[in-house]
């Protein structure tokens, strides 16, 4: 367990020092929300109706940046090679890195939620559903993202291919998270808890697949 915490702490400490997420990724998220608002401002009802989808599409864009940053931390100075030499179990490194990405995404989502409440005049009908569905979706995104990030490194391809690899895999998460938020923000008559259970299943599935696959990439290449 202390290896997982060590990897997560290391990544978060690097982010805290470099301020890449705070100074670049977070402003990007806010700008995207503002642009969506400007594009749909003619019809505020439409904007409110589409808030869940706009929110999670923005989270996916932000997640790609955060994951690319997470990968870049390891590829710079050949640290990824040092990780391979560390003898640490691949699944522990994977969970540590996914935890760090999830923590950063969660912080950004809090700011974004405040943003849609202020900019889009959205109201939260079910705060508990918002929190739980967001946690499940964030875990699913960060685990799938951390896996595909290291796969891109292992394949020796440029990190610009990451969106093409990652976005199709995260499409089901986008749909489920949007539906859950539809219920939580009262923008559509759906059962958000059913979609949240589906999100939790995605999170568990991606975490298991990621742990196994990351171990293969880290230890067998």
């Amino acid at each position, binding site marked *: 367990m*202390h*290896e997982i915490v*060590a*990897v997560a702490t*290391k990544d978060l*400490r*690097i982010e805290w*020092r*470099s301020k890449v997420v705070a100074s670049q990724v977070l402003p990007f998220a806010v700008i995207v929300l503002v642009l969506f608002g400007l594009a749909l401002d003619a019809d505020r009802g439409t904007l409110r109706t589409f808030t869940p989808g706009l929110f999670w599409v923005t989270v996916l864009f932000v997640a790609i940046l955060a994951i690319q940053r997470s990968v870049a*931390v390891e590829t*710079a*100075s*050949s*640290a990824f*090679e*040092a*990780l*391979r*030499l*560390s*003898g*640490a179990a691949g699944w522990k490194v994977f969970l540590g890195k996914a935890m760090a990405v999830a923590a950063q995404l969660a912080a950004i989502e809090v700011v974004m939620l405040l943003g849609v409440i202020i900019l889009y005049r959205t109201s939260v009908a079910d705060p508990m559903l918002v929190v739980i569905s967001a946690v499940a979706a964030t875990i699913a995104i960060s685990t799938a993202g951390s896996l595909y990030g290291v796969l891109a490194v292992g394949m020796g391809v440029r990190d610009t291919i990451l969106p093409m690899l990652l976005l199709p895999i995260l499409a089901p998460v986008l749909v489920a998270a949007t539906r859950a938020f539809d219920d939580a923000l009262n923008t559509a008559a759906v059962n958000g808890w059913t979609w949240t259970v589906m999100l939790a299943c995605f999170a568990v599935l991606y975490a298991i697949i990621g742990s196994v696959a990351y171990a293969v990439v880290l*230890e*067998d*290449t």
Partner: protein
Amino acid sequence: MEQETQRPAVAVHQAVVLLDRFPALAELDLELPAGSVTLIQGPNGAGKTTLLRLLAGLARLESGSASVLGYDVVTQRRQVRASVGLLAPNAMLYEDLTITENLTFWSTLAGTGDAAIEAALDRVGLAGLAAQHVSTLSTGQRRRATLAAVAVRRPRLWLLDEPHAGLDQAGRNIVDAFVSDAVDAGATVVVASHELDRVRPLATHVVTVAGGAVRRCERVAAAPSRGEDQPRA
């Protein structure tokens, strides 16, 4: 333990390693006893770095066999990697972390504890810069910090790729002391270097590599360890 000292620390037979279809190692054979210090010499492109990477479990073996400390580099790669310490030209340090934070991270993954960190910092002469970010260090200081990062893992096989490069005289002496200390502690050391005059006095074996194969392997006078240099009571 006795069995381990009798078994060669490194045993490579007919090893072929390809780099983009180019045979960086071409049916290379090599056996090194435990506790030895081996100088790997040869021209640029001879395969010295690839050989070290093979022994570290980082290079893919196309054919032949290789074992390190009794572990097969193909089927027991994780054990191999956990047992070796590779000092490579790249820093392998996180720029935004301090030296201490880097060493703590690597020692945590290796499970060696905090005691090794202070000792390593003292030995490389960076105790006074321990709280400094790696991004602010000079090339030589980074090299020393990387050496400390390797040391905190307490490897049983040290693989040093051009360890004296970028170091001043004091730094070079520190590298030499690390080699002697490692041997005293029962480890095996393999050094790939162009600085033959510097490494030869430390070496017990000299291996000449060219074209991805061993051209010559000779045993030279056993290098005195620091422990043996010290007067006996």
